[in-house]
C-alpha cells in the first residue's frame, strides 16, 4: 500500500526529517507499506491540507494545527501566548488531559495524531528589543497566529498581515518594524539581515506552536495490524527526535543572529507574567467567547504543570 504525506517545508527542515524518519522506519519494517512525501507544498498548499485530510483525500500531513482553527476553533489553543513555558512543559502538554480533549475533537474529523511536537519562536525588531508589552506601541508588526495578533494589538502594536515569505522585503523596505515567528523561520528567511535585536525562545518563551504529524483515522484503521505497528514504532522514534531538535533550534537561531551582529535579548519571569496578564484580557478572552466549551478547554490547558 502507499500513503501520501504532504507538508509545506523544505527537505532540510526538522519537520521534514520527522516525516522522513517515520517513512524510513516503515520501509525498514518491510510490511508492504510505502510513505510518499510531498515536501514544499508540492502537492497541496499549507492551509489546504487539513480539509482533504478530514475527508480521506490525503493520508498524512505535518501541520501547524492552528491553521485549521477556522474549522475547529478549539485548535486555536495550540498557538496561544503563554500557555507553554518551555519544551519540557510542551512535552508534558502532549501527555495531558488537555491533549486528550484536542485529540477527541480531531477524531470527530476522522483525524489522529502520530507524532506530537511543539516548536518555539520569538520576536525580532528593527530598532529596539522586544521583551515586554510596553515595547510594542506604534510598531508595525507581523505576528504568526491569530491569538498573537490579538495580544500584540492589545499591547498597542499595529498589525499588518502578510505571508511569511514577504516579511524579509517588508522589513527591508520599512513596511514592518517587528516580527514574531518561529525560530526556524527566523533563520530560513534570513531575518537577521534586517533587524537589530532578537528575543529568542529561552528559559521563558511566549510563542509555542503545536505542529504534529497527522493521519487520516480511517486510513490508519484500514491498514493491517503489522502496518499499524510499524507506523506507531516509527512515530515513537520520530517524536523523541522532534523534541530534541526543537530544543536545539532555539539555541541555533540565537547563535546565527548573534554571529550576524544582532543583539540578543532575554525575557524575564516578570516580562512573561506581564504578557500573560495581557493575553488573559485579549486572546484568552476572545478564544473563550468564540469557542464552544472554550473556558473548560482553556482551564485544562492551564492546569498542565
Amino acid at each position: 500500500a502507499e500513503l501520501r504525506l504532504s507538508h509545506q517545508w523544505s527537505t532540510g527542515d526538522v519537520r521534514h526529517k520527522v516525516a522522513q524518519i517515520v517513512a524510513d522506519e516503515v520501509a525498514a519494517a518491510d510490511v508492504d507499506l510505502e510513505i510518499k512525501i510531498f515536501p514544499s507544498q508540492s502537492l497541496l498548499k499549507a492551509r489546504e491540507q487539513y480539509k482533504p485530510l478530514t475527508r480521506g483525500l490525503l493520508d498524512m500531513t505535518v501541520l501547524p494545527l492552528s491553521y485549521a482553527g477556522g474549522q475547529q476553533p478549539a485548535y486555536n489553543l495550540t498557538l496561544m501566548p503563554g500557555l507553554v513555558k518551555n519544551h519540557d512543559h510542551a512535552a508534558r502538554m502532549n501527555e495531558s488531559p488537555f491533549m486528550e480533549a484536542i485529540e477527541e475533537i480531531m477524531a470527530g474529523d476522522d483525524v489522529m495524531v502520530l507524532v506530537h511536537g511543539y516548536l518555539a519562536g520569538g520576536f525580532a525588531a528593527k530598532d529596539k528589543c522586544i521583551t515586554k508589552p510596553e515595547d510594542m506601541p506604534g510598531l508595525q508588526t507581523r505576528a504568526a497566529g491569530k491569538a498573537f495578533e490579538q495580544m500584540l494589538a492589545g499591547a498597542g502594536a499595529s498589525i499588518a498581515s502578510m505571508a511569511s515569505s514577504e516579511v524579509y522585503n517588508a522589513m527591508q523596505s520599512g513596511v514592518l518594524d517587528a516580527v514574531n515567528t518561529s525560530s526556524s523561520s527566523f533563520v530560513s528567511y534570513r531575518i537577521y539581515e534586517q533587524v537589530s535585536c532578537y528575543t529568542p525562545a529561552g528559559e521563558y518563551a511566549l510563542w509555542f506552536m503545536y505542529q504534529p504529524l497527522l493521519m487520516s483515522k480511517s486510513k490508519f484503521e484500514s491498514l493491517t495490524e503489522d502496518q499499524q505497528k510499524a507506523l506507531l514504532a516509527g512515530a515513537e522514534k520520530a517524536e523523541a527526535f522532534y523534541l530534541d531538535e526543537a530544543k536545539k533550534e532555539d539555541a541555533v537561531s540565537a547563535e546565527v543572529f548573534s554571529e550576524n551582529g544582532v543583539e540578543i535579548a532575554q525575557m524575564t519571569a516578570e516580562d512573561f507574567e506581564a504578557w500573560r496578564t495581557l493575553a488573559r484580557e485579549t486572546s484568552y478572552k476572545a478564544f473563550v467567547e468564540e469557542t464552544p466549551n472554550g473556558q473548560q478547554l482553556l482551564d485544562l490547558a492551564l492546569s498542565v504543570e
Partner: protein
Amino acid sequence: MAGYSTAVAARAGSNPFLRIVAALSTFAGWCSAAMIVAAVLITCQMIFVRLVLNASTVWQTEAVIYLAIAATLIGLSYVQRLRGHVNVDLFPLWLKPRARFVMALITLSASILIIAMMLYYGFEFWHFAWSRGWTSDTVWGVRLWIPYLSIPVGFGLLLLQLIADLVAVVTGADKPFGLEDA
C-alpha cells in the same frame, strides 16, 4: 487564428435563450470589473491606514484576495462570451468545414462536461463550508461560504454560456470556433 482578437463577442442572433445567457454573462462581467476596482480601492486604503495612520490593517489583505478570486470566477462567463479565453486552433484551421463543425461539437461538449463537474464538486465544497460554519483562521474570521460562493456561481454562469455557445453552433447562429469559412 482566433484567440486574442479585438474581435467581437459570440453571436446570439434572435434566439431568446442565447440572448438571456448573453445578458447574464454581460452582467457578470460588470460585477467582475466592479470587484477589481473595489480591490484597487481597498488596497490603497490599506496602505493609507498603515502609512499615514500607522494603524492595524487586519481585514484588507484577505478581503482583497477574495474579491480578486471572485472577480476571476464570476468573470469567466463574460470572457467566454467575448472569446477572451486564449486558445490554439491549429486542428480546426486544418479541417474542412464539416469536420470543423464536428470538432467544435466535441470541444464544446468536453468543456461543458468538465465545467459541470467543477460546478458539482464546487457546490459540494461550498455546502461543506456553509453547513459546518467554517471561517478563515484570522482575526477577521470571514465565514468561508461567502467567498466560496463564487465557485458554484462562477462555474454555473460559465456552464450556461458554454451551453449557449453549443446551441449557437448547432443552430447555426454562430460559426464553429468563430472562424470564418476558409
